[in-house]
């Protein structure tokens, strides 16, 4: 059953094809694949909870644990339009609060987000120049008067990467963990890991990544 719970790379390819915009309904449907112990399938907009009436984000803070000095990846904050009118999201201003200059917005200008649509705001991080704790803060502007400038933060510690390369394919993941703390009930969650091959031979992923539920559900 865990195999069926895996998030497939096919979804990654599909996400790329669909660029950066997708329906919340599709998001909820995709959640069906995540775990059998969790009875997914309910649209985020269909049940009672803490939903706002307007623009919201899946999270406003995230702890990424440790990241390698030479790693490159993304931190993603999902902007969700629960309102009845289209809104624009952006621009995004990123600043480094602790550590050395560590992140920059991938988004150039503004993006239109229709009602019940979601848009992933991506912040590129790495490679880094300094070891130790880092904290970046981003201000995400929008045309929603209730969320004119949403501040989001990310914490992580930069550590030495792996030793000298040896021959063969080498899988690298941009971050080892994602901890978003406490979230409201009835809240869609979206995360992204970036994989790359640091080796000198083709990397082949064996089957679909497997998701194991270690706590909860």
């Amino acid at each position, binding site marked *: 059953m865990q195999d069926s719970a*895996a*998030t497939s*790379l096919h*979804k*990654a390819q599909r*996400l790329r094809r669909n660029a950066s915009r997708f329906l919340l309904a599709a998001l*909820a449907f995709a*959640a*069906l694949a*995540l*775990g059998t112990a969790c*009875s*997914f*399938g*309910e649209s*985020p907009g269909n049940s009672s*909870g803490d939903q706002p009436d307007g623009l919201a984000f899946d999270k406003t803070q995230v702890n990424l*644990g440790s990241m390698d000095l030479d790693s490159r990846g*993304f931190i993603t904050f999902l902007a969700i339009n629960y309102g009845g009118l289209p809104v624009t999201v952006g621009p995004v201003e990123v600043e480094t609060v602790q550590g050395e200059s560590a992140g920059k917005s991938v988004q150039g200008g503004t993006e239109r987000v229709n009602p019940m649509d979601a848009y992933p705001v991506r912040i590129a991080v790495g490679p880094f120049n300094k070891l130790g704790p880092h904290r970046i803060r981003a201000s995400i502007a929008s045309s929603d008067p209730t969320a004119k400038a949403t501040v989001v933060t990310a914490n992580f510690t930069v550590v030495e990467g792996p030793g000298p390369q040896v021959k*063969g*394919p*080498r*899988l690298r*993941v941009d*971050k*080892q*963990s*994602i*901890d*978003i*703390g*406490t*979230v*409201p*009930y*009835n*809240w*869609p*969650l*979206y*995360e*992204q*890991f*970036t*994989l*790359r091959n640091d*080796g000198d031979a083709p*990397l*082949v*992923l*064996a089957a679909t*990544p*497997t*998701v*194991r*539920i*270690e*706590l*909860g*559900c």
Partner: protein
Amino acid sequence: MELPLFMGMHEGMGGPHQFAIDIRSNDSLVPVRSVAWRFNVRDTP
């Protein structure tokens, strides 16, 4: 290459959650690389 994860919620899902994602490859040094996703759902009112 990006590995996206989506998650919805259901009633009674309050409390801490942790998922481990195992990525298997032909990397002979680390054939299975595991990453973690943690969050804590505020209980249903």
